[in-house]
């Protein structure tokens, strides 16, 4: 491995490469072909007419507009939060930091269900207000409005901004501010002339990431926005699954792919310049205790806001799942075990749990094996800045820049006919999930693999270890924790994956997110309650995965993703 035989390196990489070609580049190519050759012949005029149709412009404008609005609102609310984490030491900071990771690991469908449970028409708050003030109609009506999914976007991305900007802020050398003070700068001048300019790359990087996430938002908009609103992702889904207008869906996917690549490229450049880690290590060394009343009020307000924003929807979800029309009940959980006439499934809904776990285990195994091979391939190139290395790294990361919906759409137009007919195969779901999780696994393993000093392997070789023994007894034990982190990530991503699953899941083998989506789309209290119950189960499963990871990693509860 050390003398990295080129043939052996490529042999290692062949498996991930074949996987990417078959399940990533082939479907994507098909989308492009379908856009330009709608009836099998070159017809760009058709694409032109689609792009010039009023729907197309309206959807694109709405997608950008809502992403920009979400980004602005999130930044406004989260920057004070980043400041208190970077600057102050306060009681319960570690707990709060752990709480901050929760939205990040929560599947979109669960988030949507949680906000429905809290603020929806028959949500907890409306129920209480109606009961308390004897109202005949729910007083909060944000179901199926823009405000509802913007709120969910803030919930998701608040954490991201606090972590990226807060981590960067805490890592700023405090001597810089002291140096400016010694040169005569007042605290205000220090902020505007030193701190803010230094923070700008981190803020820009965080803003861009939030924009990307909101631009590709699917589950939240689909569930909370209702039929009146559509982002590009939602429209791709509707055009292909509801209207079977595949050329239109392909044309929409095309613009989605182009914009996503552009944004991710921008983000990669920006974060390389500012060296902002996706999940920055939080430094507490420079934090100071609270001294004045003003500081206490400021920090207290922010903490209260965090708890309200992050915790209440999740508690409401749990509460709503055990609250029926006549008070506390386990009806909804029990209903998951039975096939009823009113049910939307031909099998017991609880089977979705087994499906999800099975798919997730398969996807995890595949993603970890492929990720390990790809990471070993990349790490064996000693010069990590060489052109070849950079290009292969970028190619492996490409799936990260592609929305799951586009991918799902690509799968249904390619993998349903020879040469690769997987239409009725159970494998298609884990394959899609493994592709989504694969870049994350590489990002988990690669840094630890690169951190192993070559002298360690050389020492083992001189002590008589064969290349295989070196790999088995030096590399693997050192990176075992990183592999574990990657595995938990892959499992959780698969459990919560909705965008691709919405396309490729077969009706009789639904995954949990798909089941929740179907329940939420059906009328009736029992369906609603079952959605809440299943969301609660899914939330507990994903959170416990990360909780376990936190325990394994000791005090540091944040997984070292994309460092």
């Amino acid at each position, binding site marked *: 491995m050390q003398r990295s035989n080129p043939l052996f390196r490529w042999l290692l990489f062949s498996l991930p490469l074949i996987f990417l070609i078959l399940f990533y580049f082939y479907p994507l190519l098909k989308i492009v072909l379908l856009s330009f050759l709608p009836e099998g012949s070159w017809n760009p005029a058709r694409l032109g007419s689609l792009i010039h149709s009023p729907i197309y412009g309206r959807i694109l404008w709405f997608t950008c507009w809502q992403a920009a609005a979400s980004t602005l609102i999130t930044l406004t609310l989260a920057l004070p939060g980043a400041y208190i984490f970077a600057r102050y030491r306060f009681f319960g900071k570690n707990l709060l930091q752990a709480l901050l990771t929760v939205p990040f690991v929560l599947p979109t469908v669960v988030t949507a269900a949680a906000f429905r449970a809290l603020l929806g028409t028959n949500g907890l708050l409306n129920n209480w207000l109606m009961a308390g003030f004897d109202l005949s109609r729910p007083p909060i009506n944000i179901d199926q409005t823009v405000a509802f999914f913007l709120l969910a976007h803030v919930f998701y991305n608040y954490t991201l901004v606090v972590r990226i900007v807060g981590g960067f802020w805490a890592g700023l*050398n405090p*001597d*810089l501010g*002291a*140096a*400016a*003070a*010694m*040169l*005569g*700068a*007042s*605290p205000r*001048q220090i902020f505007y*002339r*030193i701190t803010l*300019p*230094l923070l700008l790359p981190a803020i820009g990087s965080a803003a861009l990431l939030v924009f990307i996430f909101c631009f590709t938002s699917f589950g939240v908009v689909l569930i909370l926005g209702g039929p009146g609103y559509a982002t590009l992702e939602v429209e791709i889904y509707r055009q292909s699954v509801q209207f079977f207008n595949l050329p239109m869906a392909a044309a929409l996917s095309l613009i989605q792919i182009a914009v996503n690549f552009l944004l991710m490229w921008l983000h990669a450049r920006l974060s390389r310049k500012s060296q902002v880690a996706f999940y920055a290590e939080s430094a507490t060394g420079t934090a100071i205790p609270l001294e004045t009343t003003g500081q206490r009020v400021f920090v207290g307000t922010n903490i209260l806001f965090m708890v309200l924003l992050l915790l209440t929807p999740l508690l409401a979800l749990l509460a709503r799942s055990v609250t029926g029309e006549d008070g506390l009940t386990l009806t909804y959980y029990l209903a998951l075990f039975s096939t009823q006439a009113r049910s939307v499934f031909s099998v017991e809904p609880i089977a979705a749990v087994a499906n999800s776990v099975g798919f997730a285990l398969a996807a995890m195994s595949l993603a970890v094996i492929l990720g390990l091979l790809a990471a070993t391939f990349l790490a064996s190139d000693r010069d990590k800045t060489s052109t070849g290395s950079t290009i292969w790294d970028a190619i492996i990361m490409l799936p990260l820049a592609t929305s799951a919906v586009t991918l799902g759409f690509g799968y249904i137009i390619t993998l349903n006919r020879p040469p690769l007919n997987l239409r009725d195969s159970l494998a298609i779901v884990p394959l899609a999930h493994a592709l989504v999780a694969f870049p994350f696994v590489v990002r988990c393993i690669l840094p630890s693999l690169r951190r192993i000093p070559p002298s360690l392997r050389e020492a083992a070789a001189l002590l008589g270890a064969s290349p295989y023994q070196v790999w088995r007894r030096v590399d693997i034990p050192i990176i075992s924790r990183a592999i574990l982190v990657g595995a938990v990530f892959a499992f959780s991503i698969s459990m919560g994956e909705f965008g691709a699953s919405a396309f490729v899941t077969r009706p009789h083998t639904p995954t949990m997110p798909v089941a929740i989506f179907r329940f939420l789309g059906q009328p009736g209290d029992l369906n609603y309650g079952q959605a809440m119950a299943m969301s609660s189960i899914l939330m507990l499963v994903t959170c416990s995965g990360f909780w376990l990871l936190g325990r394994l990693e000791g005090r540091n509860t944040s997984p070292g993703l994309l460092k």
Partner: protein
Amino acid sequence: MQDSQKILEVVHLSNLYDGKPLLQDINFSLMKGEILCLLGPSGSGKTTLLRLLAGLEKVDAGTILFCGRDIRHVPPHQRNFGMMFQEYALFPHKSVQQNIAFGLEMQHCPVAELTSRVEAVLTMVGLTGLAHRNIDELSGGERQRVALARSLAPEPQLLLLDEPLGSLDRALRDRLTGEIRTILKTLNVTAVFVTHDQAEAFSIADKVAILHHGILQQFETPENLYRHPANSTVARFLGFHNLIAGTITSDNMFQSPLGALPVKNTATDTITRSTLLIRPEGARLAQSLPAPQNALQLSGTITDRQFQGSTYRLNLDVNGLALSFDLPIDPPPPEIGRPIQLVLNPSALVLLGS
């Protein structure tokens, strides 16, 4: 007249961290244009003392007077003190020129004057032509010079330097130490310099303050400090090993396993326990000198002999005591295991305070 020259006075200064005392009852004063070195091991409180002078830490007890004015409540940005930080703390988003100009901009210095002042300090530190470089394009030594230029540009009333040479290699350190002293003396800047390196302190300072466990042990000129360490803590920190415990009898004799040695300046006429320091350079081979009258002589066995270039370092066993001395290379001392006779210079014997 003397008092009017005192620029900095530290009176009964104490500081606590998490309830533990970091500095206890520090008192000293500094004249205009003097360079003071705060010397001590890590954790001795020297950086804390510097940051208290800068106003970056809060004073818990005592006073700091600058030009006779109590400056405890003046925020750092209104003190017009300069400070050079350990890792320089150069602003990474600004060029060399912008870093140096920052302090002048804060003083609302007119553009034309600002440009010429930046140019002048750049020339002084020997960095002409580097004005438009980025900070990350500079070597360690260049960064150090930019940091010095930045802190000098606004003409501070007091310059504070926190281990400014700590991260450089030995050769560069030695050269820059000399350069810094020349520049500070040319500008007649009053400065406080923190270091843990004794050689650096001796070559740069007019006064040295030895700090240990937050207590000011001694405040002296480098030469007096070396000749007369105040106590065994200072002596050990300065690298002296020949510390001999014994008693002083009423006839001004120091009684120890070495025998009775005459000592000066004992104001007491009772028997007291004390420690004697014999400085390592204060001995010669007995046969190389015509033995003077009443010369102090030591005889022992050589346990180790290291050739160190300009001197031999000898470790001796004298009546069960381990002593070490630096002897000239000519005439060469006897081999390991051989007996040796040494003559001691009386000025190399220092009686230490408790």
